């Protein structure tokens, strides 16, 4: 391929932000670091599709909107083991993209 992919463009901006972070005054430098983290999320989201993964995990309950409505109306119980297992899969799918190093992620992936 002769032109950089979306992923490669992101990597280029991430490199630039790293450079900028060191050169910028404190507050802007911090924002450059945050911006770099945001791009890392975007890069992971290009690979995975957390919205679809969440919908798939909760399909038996009408997807995310259905699960939310059921819990709000009381037709779903917060003690339902199948619902808790599905919510665990949904939470894992999102966190894999948003912060794969978050300690609770590894704990949720362990069998209870």
């Amino acid at each position, binding site marked *: 391929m002769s032109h950089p992919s979306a992923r490669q463009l992101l990597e280029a901006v991430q490199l630039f932000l790293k450079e900028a972070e060191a050169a910028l005054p404190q507050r802007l430098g*911090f*924002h450059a670091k*945050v*911006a770099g*983290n*945001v791009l890392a*999320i975007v890069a992971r989201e290009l690979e995975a599709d957390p919205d679809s993964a*969440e919908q798939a995990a*909760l399909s038996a309950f009408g997807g*995310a*909107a259905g*699960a*939310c409505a059921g*819990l*709000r109306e*009381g037709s*779903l*119980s*917060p003690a339902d083991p199948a*619902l*808790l*297992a599905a*919510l*665990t899969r*949904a*939470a*894992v799918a*999102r*966190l894999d*993209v*948003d*912060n794969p190093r*978050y*300690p*609770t*992620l590894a*704990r*949720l992936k362990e069998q*209870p």
Partner: protein
Amino acid sequence: MATRPATAEGRETLSMLDPAGAAGREALALALGQALGAPVAIRDVVALSGGANSATWRVDAETESPEGPASRRFIFQRSANALGLPRRVQAEVMRRAAGLGVPVPPVIAVPAPETGLGDSVITGFVEGEALAPRWLRDDRYAAAREALALQCGTALARLHGAPRSHWDGLPLASGSGSELLSNLFATYRRIGVDVPAFDLAFAWLRPRMPDRSPTCLVHGDFRSGNILVGPDGLTAVLDWELPHHSVPEEDLGWLCVQAWRFGAWQKPVGGFAAREALLSAYRAAGGTVEADSLWTWEVFGNLKWGMSCLQLADDHVSGRVPSVERAAIGRRVSEVAADLVHAIARGDL
């Protein structure tokens, strides 16, 4: 010269003096001189931190004393908007908390509106590390971390042990646990997004949050990021911006929220202790609390933090406060969602 203070996100603020500028220093010297009853010369004003709601400066001054000139340090703190409790009320809560034996920075002065210093307070400078990740990780604070559960449990028991009359005359909010939960749910629906783990937590909490009337004053934001820690432990409880009438478990549970453990999740109390250590310290100092109800409020605290993430993200998404920082915080909702699912599905966090 009146300038716009350096607030985090350029939110509209009243015109106030820059405390580091010439006129600001003059106003500070005047306010301090009046409070101390002696002339004060300002040597330096250093910005320490600026958030969306509040900004803090260190003030190095020279005061006259019977023994001759003395160097003294102060903290100048002011609100960046009119959303919170007035500083005059916060200062009065701090004075009365100090009277109960809670370690708080001594209140020196609450500058009057005509000083141009804004809604602000001047306190004494207390030694200690404010950055929790530093005192949670650094070897120099190993002994401090050992001592903190006892010190925090004791400080909270003293605060909560005061009769309601101790806070007479102060315009402070009051509400039961179930009212706090309904308010949080109303905010959730106003933002209008669907986070399944949040609805799980609301459904789990609804039958558990107590209806009983408030029994005490709570600090309202007692966490590892809001205390000062020295080599021997707690030196001061900071940020008295959210005190209100509630039940003791609100403060105790909030201190256990995952976000304030800064990665040290094995130590549920602020990343430095086990829950049992906090509970036994709290009881030894005369407080009454049950482990079950602490757990309910800990889950509530995590949900409340998740709702803060959602609200900060909504500031960006709605266009009110465009900010990369707030946009990024929106994705921390996933962290809290995972914590809530873990807490409810597995009974611990």
